[in-house]
């Protein structure tokens, strides 16, 4: 059964149509790759999926429920974890604080947040001292891991990642991809937006976006 379903999604910036009649289905336990050439609307689709942008037409279903009926802040903070291409971390905070903050925004209760955040950071390959550093003092790969830990912090069903390996070297790319694979195996739906053939090859399902001729 699909956790996320797109029905004839269209999106346009003014008169420029970027997405046209997109209908995809995403299931739990699988990795998806949305690929396409530059300007094909990959990042726009990710924004629509994460609730940051509203489709011009069409409908998105989270399970059985239309996303329109879910508060978009709640949708972003609880049901979907987004990993941005440029990480979008709070730079004045440490890696640990970024993860804890994400849990607090999501309203996670009943767990020791700092402890869980540290475990998450360790699980994505950061040690304790790195976790306590401000994010600007971390490398791109380390920031990417912090962003992943943050996306996982409130245990969402869907993980969205925009060019998750775009800024990383081959070795780190492999490491990051194995984290995504593990997440999918643990029952998450992992949707990666990438134009990398390596990433596409490692995913279970590939969707390709075609550039609209406006």
């Amino acid at each position, binding site marked *: 059964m699909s956790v996320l379903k797109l029905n004839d999604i269209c999106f346009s910036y003014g008169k420029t149509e970027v997405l046209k009649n997109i209908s995809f289905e995403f299931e739990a336990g699988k990795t998806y790759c949305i690929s396409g050439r530059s300007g094909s609307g990959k*990042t726009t689709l990710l*924004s629509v999926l*994460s609730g*940051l*942008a509203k489709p011009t037409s069409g409908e998105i279903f989270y399970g059985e429920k239309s996303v329109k009926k879910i508060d978009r*802040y*709640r*949708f*972003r*903070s*609880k049901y979907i974890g*987004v990993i*941005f*291409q*440029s990480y*979008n*971390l*709070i*730079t*004045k*905070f440490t890696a640990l*604080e970024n993860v804890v*903050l*994400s849990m*607090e*925004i*999501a309203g996670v209760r009943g767990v020791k947040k700092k402890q869980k955040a540290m475990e998450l950071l360790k699980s994505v390959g950061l040690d304790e001292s790195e976790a306590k550093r401000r994010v600007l003092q971390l490398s791109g790969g380390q920031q990417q891991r912090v962003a992943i830990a*943050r996306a996982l912090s409130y245990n969402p069903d869907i993980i969205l990642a925009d060019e998750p390996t775009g800024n990383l070297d081959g070795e780190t790319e492999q490491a990051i991809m194995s984290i995504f694979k593990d997440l999918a195996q643990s029952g998450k739906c992992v949707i990666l937006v990438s134009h990398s053939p390596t990433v596409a090859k490692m995913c279970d399902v590939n969707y390709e976006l075609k550039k609209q001729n406006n």
Partner: protein
Amino acid sequence: MYIFKNALKCIGRSKGRNALIGVIVFIIALSACLGLSIRQAAESSREETLKNLKITANISFDRSSMMSSMRDENKGSFDRDKFSENMEKMSGLTLDEYEKYSKAETVEDFYYTITTSVNGSDNFSSVTTESEDESSSASNTKMPQMSNGDLGGKGMGGFGKGGIGGGMQGDFTITGYSGENAMKSFIDGTAAIKEGEVFAEGDENYDCIIPSELAEFNSISVGDSVKIANPNNEEELYTLKVVGIYTDSSANESGMGFMGMTANDPANQIYLSFNALEKIIAASEKNATTETDEDTGRQSSTKLNGQLNASYVFADIEGYEQFQEDVKAMGLDDNYTVSSNDVEAFENSLVPLDTLSKLAGYFLLVILIIGAVILVVLNIFNVRERKYEIGVLTAMGMKKGKVALQFITEIFVVTIAAVIIGAGLGAVGSVPVTNALLENQVAHASDQTDKIEQGFGRLPDGEGASQMQAPPENHGGFKPFENLMGINNENAYVTEIGSATNFTVLLQMLGIGVLLTLISGTVSMLFIMRYEPLKILANRD
């Protein structure tokens, strides 16, 4: 809760920006605290003084009210003959009437005096610093014809029961007291018996007390008799027995009688009981002859004119204000008014502090406006600078309202901390600063008064000014020329305040802190609400 924690973290991690905001708020708070403290000091000083102020009031003829009603009747033009006619019709209140009003509920004490002017005799002459010739020309001045109550100033009851009066100004002022409570200078310690004793209350014998200077001048001892004469009829003599000699410290301060009139010199003040002086005036009236001026048709009498003055004492200003209403209800004519030198002196004493308070109010307003503008601008920069952070937080699912709340919390914490420090330092500094400013204000106000005095040919402070003073001992509140001439010779200003910052000021400071937070916080909120995370993050990318 996490919003508050986040806010604190953000404050700690943006020390420079928050320190700048803190310094600005601190300056605003310090200035505001000083301004508010000055205003509070003025208010407290007024309340405190009023609370402890015993008020003495008099009923006097309200000449200005009559003049204005006449102007109204004549549609703006002023009829001098009618004015004189009206003035002559107005008789001063009688003792019975004064006593009637003393029954008003709020009157705490009541006393009265009668004053007249007499001449000396061969072996009893007035103290004068002038030569004999000058003295004789200065004394025995023919006073203008005045009908009852014509002097009409505050603290004067007008002439007594006698009808038309007029006559010569004598060398001595002789005052009859209703009781010891009327002898204010003896109560406040300005005057004291040196030898003998004060005449008995209600005494009808012609027992009097005289100043030591006068006693020495005429070689008089206690037990001696002195003769006084009616200045309108030198053959009309009365013998007084000196039962006491008193010293008057205020006499040392004034070199000469008022406007050179020896009768107003403190050294030429004779005191006796009201009953005794009333008896003398009654005897004089009995022996009096009346003449009619052929040209003006006005009558003049040789009788001694007694000027009756009654004083009412109230526990506080409310009592005084109530009395003003009560006497009208008890039938006091609209041409009479109740007034108090104490209230005026009290209001005058607060002039510098009130001026300072007003200036502090304007200063406070300017500081708050400028401060609020600076804070708003700083917050606009702050929000714009943290635009990316706002985008990330909202992209993570934090509602804009919560983001705004975090920003407002940051401003609030910084503002309140700065307000507390500013208010603390302001509280410590408010008393010395207020007193220093008040000193300047008092000096300025005194300079102004001195300039006015000099403009009228009077010398400031102590020299000629003392010459302008009314006799310091005019018991019962009667100061014959003081108010007539508009002279306010006692600049008893409030020159110092004890405390300025109190709980009210602290509450107001808190209010200012909240107000500044709200103003600058609202701006932050408006900006945050406008921002769309997608646009921010897309631009960043």
